[in-house]
């Protein structure tokens, strides 16, 4: 792993509504000995909205991001947010494939994209660049006794085959990370079901129904928590969980930690550095059942 070439594309939500994701990423990176560098001058990826209104604008926004990353000598652009990842990977794919389009945008955009930067999903990065060995080596408080459902959501894995690092139908990368932390993972058919994304704001009833289905199945399987790597999924599963739980008669609260928060806990980091207080469903209840908190109390 060449550490100098790695930088993070945080995306808008990690700066505001999911600042605990960024915080835990920073903590986990420092444990793993990866320099925490954020790309300079990035702009929003456009999410699902811009491409619904104007696809060309979306491509331009991400062309700018990619070209700018290259200018800064970045080879591995690590993207934690699934939506940003999907947009950037889509731009990378489209621009790599279509030379005419690339030249046209390079001319028009003030920036030149030379196909030197690789867009990496955070899961891809942890498994294929950092390596599971390094992760399991750093585990100080194994999460044994914790049963985890890994929820990938839609956009982490659903990129064109040339870009993908995992299968879209039944991904396993997050499961591998969680296993490396010592927790149990379940086989789960809801791994990649949709949480409704922006329908959570626009047509809330639909999103609540979708989230309800996911949480209900997780509840029936008696998992301790549902871990995610996408800020949108985290917000949707977490924010209104109380209402959704009572509508779907799910008894136990299901905390929704980010994968990096679980990693941080297993690495023995201070919960404060992981932003655990920002999760709506508190993690404490589940952690008391596993070794993490017990060790802390001793």
């Amino acid at each position: 792993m060449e550490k100098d070439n790695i930088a993070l594309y945080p995306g808008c939500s990690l700066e505001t509504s999911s600042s605990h994701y960024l915080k835990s990423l920073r903590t986990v990176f420092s444990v793993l000995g990866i320099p925490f560098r954020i790309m300079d001058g990035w702009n929003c990826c456009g999410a699902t909205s811009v491409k619904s209104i104007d696809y060309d604008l979306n491509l331009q926004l991400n062309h700018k991001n990619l070209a700018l990353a290259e200018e800064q000598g970045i080879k591995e652009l690590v993207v934690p947010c699934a939506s940003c990842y999907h947009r950037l990977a889509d731009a990378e794919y489209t621009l790599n494939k279509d030379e005419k389009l690339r030249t046209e945008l390079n001319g028009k955009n003030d920036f030149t994209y030379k196909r030197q930067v690789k867009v990496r999903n955070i899961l891809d990065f942890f498994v294929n660049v950092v390596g599971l060995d390094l992760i399991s080596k750093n585990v100080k408080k194994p999460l044994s006794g914790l049963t985890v459902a890994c929820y990938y959501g839609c956009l982490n894995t659903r990129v064109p085959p040339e870009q993908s690092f995992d299968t879209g139908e039944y991904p396993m990368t997050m499961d591998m990370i969680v296993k490396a932390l010592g927790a149990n993972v379940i086989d789960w058919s809801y791994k990649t079901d949709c949480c409704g994304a922006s329908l959570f704001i626009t047509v809330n009833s639909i999103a609540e129904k979708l989230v309800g289905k996911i949480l209900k199945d997780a509840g029936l399987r008696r998992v301790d928590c549902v871990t995610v790597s996408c800020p949108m999924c985290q917000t949707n599963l977490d924010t209104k969980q109380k209402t959704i739980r009572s509508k779907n008669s799910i008894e136990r609260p299901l905390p929704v930690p980010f994968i990096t928060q679980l990693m941080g806990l297993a690495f023995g980091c201070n919960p404060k550095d992981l932003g655990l207080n920002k999760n709506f469903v508190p993690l404490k209840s589940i952690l008391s059942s596993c070794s993490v908190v017990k060790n802390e109390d001793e």
Partner: protein
Amino acid sequence: MMLLFWVLKYKLRCYNDYDILLFMGIIELEKRKILYKETLLCYQCAKCSSGCPLVEEMDMLPHVIIHLASLGLERSVLNSETIWICASCYACAVKCPNDIEIPNIMNRLKQMAADEGFEPKRKDVYKFHKVFTDDILRRGKVHELRIMIEYNLRLGKLFKNAMLAPKMLFKNKLHFIPPKAVKGFRKWVKKTS
């Protein structure tokens, strides 16, 4: 017209309806080229619709949309709720045996609907996308609180999701102050657009 269609289809055994319509001059290839090319391979296996998490809410199933688009009849789907309800989850695109990127076509249709002056069937969704896009163009990053407020204002439903914002503000998840603008972003927007 119908008789000619019938003769071509059932007497002369032209299988592809699109070709017939093309032959009859009802649709023009040039104009519809992109959608035609992208949807040409669809053989109506309906895997897309069977994997779509939102079919219950749609008024037209995704494979029907693709079929109509491939026939050059996309005008008839511009009025559907489906193109707006689609969450761009790409479940269909992963399942499609012919690698048709269905959500991209849905987006194309959304844009076509807007261009051709169709009233968006789901204004709530359209307005959200619009507010979001406008906000990005303002400073290169989104200001979530502003989007939520502006969206409610434009929709005329002041108390939609009213419980969400205070809850998130309380956890310091929404900020009153917008993020710092990306340097030179406005200039770049002006120049490129």
